[in-house]
């Protein structure tokens, strides 16, 4: 194994690639000590290397003779804790001593690691089995090596953390002493591996601190924006304030002459800008030896723009078009069960309500940035804080390959820790910009940083939407029919067909569809010219609010307790002709609803004074079941604060890293409440909000107390980055109604609208 950094490909073999996206490949290859230092060789804080080089057991695990175990994290870390959690799965099944584990960030390399993405809360369900198999395979090979050395049957062996034990003689051999032999063995077929009994877990289910926290408290340079590459220049990139606008001319020579500016040039879009999609757009790049100088020089830019197709977009126009469309016959029927129109006619009582929510911006705290070096030899090296290095046309590899005209094989992407993601960094526009600027600047390394204002103006926004509900009841308050005419945004696709924008849909099976005897969900689209994309819990973060609030209105109209009413709906049989219930298991949901009712003291809420109220909501998304109760205080002038949120979640049998799981739920609740204060509006094709002063983030003084509880069930574990967020918005809105009698039917909440006397 003294063969430097080369991989002995003659001994490489692949065992399997799993279908579940978390491909497992065990490669029997040997490398010397890796050059990986959190993905960025130039970063300062290199962890101390073991004295003797580690030996690769497979693509994820290397063990050094001194017992140090290096585990590679395959997925992007955006604050969801994946860099800690995936290695826990491996370490558990290999029976590693966690105190001897070091975790390093893998580069973007799907051939080696399988799919690499931070999105959809998929990492837990997709890796629960494959990553444990990686560990179990390593453990078996270590045991096989020990059996050979001791000349005993493998059945006589067991393991303790980082040791193989011969039970009869109590003879122990450390993993570090076995690795050289073990790495030469043929990896086992993962399907044959025996996994641990959960009762014997030593790592899964224990609180494991966020791996990089010690570096963070010391201010070590571990984020994308901290990347330093020798000889690099700092860049700012100015695009048209109207999405997709093209440059006619710019005062480049004037900018180049400014003190401290080392270069400036126009970058042209790669191909025609596609309305509503993120990629390389026209802009002016300004380079300097520090970023502030480049950014300040941009203030002197005079650019003549062709503002393009989106220049007339405005939120006021969206609202008036939506109101007109709501009056008309819907363009499309999304789902229809029974005869809602007939049932409404004979109903003893009907109610109607129109709901809306605004566009939102992701605004992760680390502004978009990327460091790239398009080298003279035709290769490209990229240091990107990204949620999606590969996969699809918007992955960094594809965007850079297309824009620069280089083969994907010539591109190296180091995935650097993201200062928040929330879906924003699934798009890689900033990465292709950095690569294009580096190339055009003469193949020098460039660190591109956006201003916060640029981030607000160039986001794949969470689209707004409009829902027009009607419900009918019989004399006993049973729901007989429900309809929703949903108004959203679309744009003609290449074939000329009006197609709904990304994340702008409302699923037709949204609860309580298929739980009421007659329902009809329909849709109308207006033209939208803004880029849109997934924001944490995409679709769910919007449609949960409107549906779970209208269900509250239905409960009041039916004269029923909002939780009783929901439990009755959940218990309803599926009506004849109804479609699948979107994978939601009603019994699991009813269970968490009942538990949150009990934990929150829901049934004692009648004693609350006016101005204080409790509201509830539940939601199934990303395979997770969450029910929440919020307690809100509203002053007479309408100033409001969430006092406490109780959350009960069922995400399966096992909470892999409880401290991080709770952190995700706590953060989701704060994030959801934050969204109730936020909006993005457009005028003349321009985003009107600029920074955190007009796009506020919730602060500590408005963050509620949180009781976050998990209610395990006998199901495979599922993810937690998203499903705890959607229900908090309607729970809070319903609590405001309980406190004041004022119904929240649009966001953000306007203080004067909920003032009371």
């Amino acid at each position: 194994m003294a063969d430097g950094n080369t991989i002995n490909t003659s001994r490489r073999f692949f065992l399997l690639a799993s279908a579940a996206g978390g491909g497992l490949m065990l490669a029997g290859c040997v490398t010397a000590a890796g050059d990986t230092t959190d993905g960025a060789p130039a970063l300062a804080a290199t962890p101390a290397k073991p004295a003797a080089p580690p030996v690769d057991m497979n693509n994820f695990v290397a063990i050094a003779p001194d017992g140090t175990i290096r585990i590679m994290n395959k997925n992007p870390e955006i604050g969801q804790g994946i860099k800690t959690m995936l290695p826990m799965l491996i370490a558990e099944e290999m029976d590693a001593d966690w105190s001897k584990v070091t975790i390093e960030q893998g580069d973007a390399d799907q051939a080696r690691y399988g799919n690499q993405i931070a999105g959809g809360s998929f990492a837990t369900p997709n890796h629960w089995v494959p990553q444990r198999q990686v560990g179990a395979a390593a453990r078996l090979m270590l045991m096989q090596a020990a059996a050979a050395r001791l000349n005993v049957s493998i059945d006589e062996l067991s393991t303790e953390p980082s040791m193989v034990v011969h039970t009869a003689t109590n003879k122990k051999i450390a993993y570090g002493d076995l690795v050289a032999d073990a790495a030469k063995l043929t990896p086992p077929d993962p399907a044959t591996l025996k996994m641990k009994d959960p009762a014997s877990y030593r790592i899964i289910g224990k609180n494991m601190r966020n791996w990089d926290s010690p570096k963070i408290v010391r201010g070590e340079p571990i984020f994308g924006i901290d990347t330093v590459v020798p000889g690099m220049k700092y860049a700012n990139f100015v695009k048209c304030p109207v999405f997709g606008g093209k440059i006619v001319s710019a005062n480049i020579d004037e900018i180049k002459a400014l003190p401290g500016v080392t270069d400036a040039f126009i970058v042209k879009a790669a191909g025609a800008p596609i309305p509503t999609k993120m990629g390389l757009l026209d802009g002016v790049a300004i380079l300097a030896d520090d970023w502030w100088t480049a950014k300040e020089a941009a203030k002197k830019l005079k650019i003549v723009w062709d503002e393009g197709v989106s220049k007339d977009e405005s939120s006021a126009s969206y609202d008036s078009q939506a109101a007109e469309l709501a009056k008309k016959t819907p363009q499309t029927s999304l789902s229809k069960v029974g005869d809602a129109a007939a049932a409404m006619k004979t109903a003893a009582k009907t109610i109607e309500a129109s709901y809306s929510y605004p566009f939102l911006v992701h605004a992760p705290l680390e502004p978009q940035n990327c460091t790239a070096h398009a080298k003279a030899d035709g290769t490209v090296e990229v240091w990107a804080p990204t949620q999606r290095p590969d996969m699809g046309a918007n992955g960094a590899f594809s965007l850079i390959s297309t824009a620069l005209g280089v083969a994907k094989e010539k591109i190296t992407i180091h995935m650097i820790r993201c200062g928040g993601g929330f879906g924003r960094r699934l798009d890689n526009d900033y990465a292709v910009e950095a690569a294009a600027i580096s190339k055009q600047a003469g193949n020098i390394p460039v660190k591109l940083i956006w201003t916060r204002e640029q981030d607000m103006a160039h986001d794949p926004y969470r689209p707004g939407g409009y829902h027009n509900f009607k419900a009918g009841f019989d004399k006993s308050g049973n729901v007989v029919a429900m309809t929703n005419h949903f108004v959203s945004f679309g744009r003609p696709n290449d074939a000329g067909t009006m197609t709904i924008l990304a994340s702008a849909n409302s699923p037709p099976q949204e609860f309580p569809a298929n739980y009421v005897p007659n329902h009809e969900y329909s849709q109308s689209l207006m033209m939208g010219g803004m880029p849109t994309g997934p924001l944490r819990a995409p679709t769910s973060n919007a449609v949960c609010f409107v549906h779970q609030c209208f269900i509250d209105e239905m409960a009041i109209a039916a004269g029923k307790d909002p939780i009783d009413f929901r439990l009755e709906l959940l218990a309803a049989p599926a009506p004849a002709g109804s479609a699948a219930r979107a994978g939601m298991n009603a019994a699991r949901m009813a269970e968490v609803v009942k538990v949150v009712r009990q934990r929150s003291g829901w049934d004692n809420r009648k004693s609350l004074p006016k101005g204080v109220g409790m509201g509830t909501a539940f939601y199934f998304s990303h395979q997770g079941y969450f029910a929440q109760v919020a307690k809100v205080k509203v002053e007479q002038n309408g100033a409001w604060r969430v006092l406490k949120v109780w959350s009960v979640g069922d995400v399966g049998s096992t909470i892999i890293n409880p401290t991080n799981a709770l952190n995700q739920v706590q953060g989701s609740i704060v994030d959801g409440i934050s969204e109730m204060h936020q909006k993005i509006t457009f005028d003349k094709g321009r985003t009107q909000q600029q920074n955190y002063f007009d796009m506020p983030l919730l602060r500590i003084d408005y963050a509620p107390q949180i009781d976050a509880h998990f209610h395990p069930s006998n199901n495979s574990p599922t993810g937690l980055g998203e499903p705890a967020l959607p229900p908090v918005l309607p729970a809070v809105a319903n609590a405001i109604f309980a406190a004041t009698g004022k119904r929240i039917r649009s966001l953000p909440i306007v203080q004067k609208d909920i003032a009371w006397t």
Partner: protein
Amino acid sequence: MATYTLNVNGKTETVDVVDGNMPLLWVLRDKLDLKGTKFGCGVAACGACSVHLDGQVTRACVTPVSSVGAKRVTTIEAIGQSPVGQAVQKAWLDVDVMQCGYCQAGQIMAATALIATTPKPTDKEIDSAMQGNACRCGTYVRIREAIKTAAGAATADTREV
């Protein structure tokens, strides 16, 4: 071009900048390679760039380097040199505050300044001292707990429920 002499983390540093209006944030990050202080908004609206000037929490993103003078600049890289700063760092780890971690340098700087002047802060004092520091991940429950842990106080949230 202008030259400034600064006292950063106990060391004397001389920097050349094109313009004396260049904020301390970018002097720290791009001239002195101290990347721990973070850029979040550029307009003192998020607190990610918080440093101490003579012990006072200051937003480095709106502090021109020309205005710093002889004031002692302390950044996250040196916060562990004070007993309070060290206690805050330890509490942040013990409580496992971090999600993405990007705002936390600023949070730690603000918390350290708070405890240095108010050794046993109440919830109200925590709200007041920390409301300028945004956490996009929403780790406020833990920030509150970590401040109390660092201060050696009971961690229960005493605000109205």
